[in-house]
C-alpha cells in the first residue's frame, strides 16, 4: 500500500478528529454553548440514520419507510442494558456497559431487520413500503404496551453518557464501514440489484441474500444510532419514534441525494441545522423549512449532491486492485450527449 493510499483511507477519520478538536476548542472558549453541541450531536446521529437507510433505499433499491422502528428498538435495547440490567454497575464499568448496550441495541434491531427483510423478497416498491411502515407502527404500539419498560410514558433516567466524542467515533466507524462495504465488489451487487434485479439474477447474484443483508446491516446501524440517541436525551418514549421520525430520515436521504453517502451527510446535516437556524421565525419556521425543501426537490430532483461522492467516500477500482487492471485508453470517458 502506497503512502498516498494510506492517507486516503484515513482521510475521513482525520477530518472528524480535526472537526472534533475545533468544536471542543470553540466550546471551551465559550463560542459554542451546550445547545450548539446538542444540535451537532443530533445532526451526527441523523447522518448515521440516513446513511444506513441509504444502504437499503439508495443503494439496494428497496423501499423502507419505517426506519425509526429500528432506531427505537436500538434505543430501548441499549437503555434496558444501561439503566435496568446493569443499573447498579460500579462507576468504572459505565463505559463498557454503555458499549455493550449499544451493541445489544444494534443486535435487537438487526434481528428485526432480518424479519422485515424476508417480505422484501416477495414485495417491491409501494407494497414493501407499506409493510415497513406497518412494521414501524407495530413496534411503537408494542412498546406502548410493555409496562416494565415504561409503556406509553417511556423510560426515564437513562444515563446521559453519549457525548460528541462518542458520537463522532461511531459516525466515523459507520461511514468507514459503509463506504468499504458499498464500494467493494461485494457491495456492487447491491447497486446491481437496484439497477436491474432481473439482470442481477441472470448474472448469478444471489439477490435474496443481498436484499436481506442490506436490511440487517441497515437495521443494526439504525439500532446503534438509537442507542446513541437515548443516551444523549436520557429519556425515550415510543412516540419519539413515530412515522414522522421515519419520514424525517427519508427527507434527509432524498434531499441530500440517495445512492450517495455524501448526500446523506449533506442532507442530514443541513436539514437538522436548518430548523434551528430558522428558529427566529417562530411559527413560520416549519413553513419556510417546507418551502425550502420543495424548492430543492424541484431544482435538484436528484438531491443536493445528486449521486456524486466525495473522493474519500468512494473507493475506485484502482484502490481495490492496485491498478493491475487494464487502464482506460485515450478514447475512454468520451461523453455521449
Amino acid at each position, binding site marked *: 500500500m502506497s503512502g498516498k493510499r494510506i492517507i486516503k483511507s484515513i482521510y475521513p477519520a482525520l477530518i472528524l478528529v480535526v472537526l472534533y478538536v475545533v468544536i471542543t476548542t470553540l466550546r471551551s472558549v465559550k463560542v459554542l454553548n451546550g445547545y450548539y453541541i446538542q444540535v451537532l450531536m443530533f445532526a451526527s446521529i441523523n447522518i448515521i440514520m440516513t446513511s444506513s437507510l441509504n444502504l437499503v433505499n439508495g443503494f439496494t433499491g428497496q423501499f423502507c419507510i419505517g426506519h425509526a422502528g429500528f432506531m427505537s428498538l436500538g434505543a430501548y435495547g441499549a437503555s434496558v442494558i444501561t439503566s435496568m440490567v446493569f443499573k447498579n454497575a460500579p462507576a468504572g464499568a459505565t463505559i463498557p456497559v454503555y458499549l455493550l448496550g449499544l451493541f445489544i441495541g444494534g443486535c435487537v434491531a438487526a434481528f428485526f431487520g432480518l424479519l422485515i427483510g424476508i417480505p422484501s423478497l416477495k414485495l417491491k416498491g409501494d407494497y414493501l413500503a407499506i409493510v415497513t411502515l406497518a412494521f414501524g407502527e407495530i413496534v411503537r404500539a408494542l412498546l406502548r404496551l410493555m409496562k416494565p419498560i415504561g409503556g406509553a410514558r417511556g423510560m426515564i433516567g437513562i444515563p446521559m453518557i453519549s457525548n460528541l466524542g462518542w458520537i463522532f467515533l461511531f459516525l466515523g466507524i459507520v461511514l468507514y464501514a459503509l463506504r468499504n462495504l458499498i464500494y467493494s465488489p461485494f457491495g456492487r451487487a447491491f447497486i446491481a440489484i437496484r439497477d436491474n434485479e432481473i439482470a442481477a*439474477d441472470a448474472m448469478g447474484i444471489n439477490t435474496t441474500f443481498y436484499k436481506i443483508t442490506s436490511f440487517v446491516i441497515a437495521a443494526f446501524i439504525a439500532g446503534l444510532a438509537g442507542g446513541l440517541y437515548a443516551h444523549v436525551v436520557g429519556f425515550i418514549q415510543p412516540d419519539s419514534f413515530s412515522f414522522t421520525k421515519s419520514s424525517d430520515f427519508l427527507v434527509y436521504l432524498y434531499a441530500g441525494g440517495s445512492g450517495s453517502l455524501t448526500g446523506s451527510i449533506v442532507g442530514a446535516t443541513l436539514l437538522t441545522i436548518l430548523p434551528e437556524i430558522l428558529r427566529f421565525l417562530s411559527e413560520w419556521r416549519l413553513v419556510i423549512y417546507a418551502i425550502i425543501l420543495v424548492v430543492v426537490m424541484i431544482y435538484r430532483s436528484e438531491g443536493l449532491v445528486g449521486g456524486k461522492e466525495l473522493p474519500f467516500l468512494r473507493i475506485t477500482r484502482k484502490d481495490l486492485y492496485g491498478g493491475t487492471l487494464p487502464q482506460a485508453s485515450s478514447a475512454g*470517458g468520451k461523453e*455521449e450527449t
Partner: protein
Amino acid sequence: MALLEVRDLHVSYGAIQAVQGVSFEVNEGEVVALIGSNGAGKSTILRTISGLEKAKSGSIRFNDQELTKMKAHNIVKAGIAHVPEGRRIFPRLTVTENLHMGANLQTDKAKIASDMERVFELFPRLKEREKQQAGTLSGGEQQMLAFGRALMTDGKLLMMDEPSMGLAPIIVDEIFEIINRINAEGRSILLIEQNAFLALKTAKRAYVLETGKITMSGPASDLLADERVKAAYLGA
C-alpha cells in the same frame, strides 16, 4: 448426450398456460433457434431455464443436472449465461463494472482480466467507453454490453433473448457475426428471435413455437425453405 435437454415443460402465469409441454434439446457446440411470434412463449422458456420463472411440470436437464428446482444464481454457476430481453444492463455502473458483475462468481483475477480483454477485443466500442456509465450508452452498445457481460460468466451455454430487438440493421449484423464467432470457439447458443430469417441463417437447428407448443422442428436450412415457415415468419 445433449448439453441441454428440456422435456415436456409446462409453465403458467396464473390461469394462462404460457408453455404447454415443450421438449427440445441443445447439443454441445450447436446454435439452436426458437422462433415464433410475439406471445408464443419463447422468452418464458428461457426465463424458466434460468430459474427466473418456476416450471409447473416437466424437466430441464443441463450437463446432467436437473435445473427446475434450482435457484437462478446456482443455474448461472452451473454454466448457463442469459442475455435477457431488452438489454438489462446496470445503468449506474460503468461499462467495466457491468462486465465485472458478469464475473461475480469467478475468483481467478487473472482469468477475469483476460476474459475482459477478450470481450473488449470482440466489442472494441465497449473498450472506448469502459469508464462511462452504462446508462449513457446507445441501444446497440447496451446490447453489446449485455452480451459481453454474459460472456464474462463463462457459461457453456449462452441464451440470447431477442438480440436484434430495436437495433439498427448494421448493429444487428455485427451482433450476429459475433454470435457466430463465439459459437466457432465452442460455446453452445440457444437463440430466440422474432427475426426468423436471421435466426435461421445463424442456427444449425431450429424449433417453431406457436402459442406455447412446438409445431415444427428440424435443420434450420430445411425450415428456411419450408413453405409454411416462409408464409408465417419470413413474409415471402
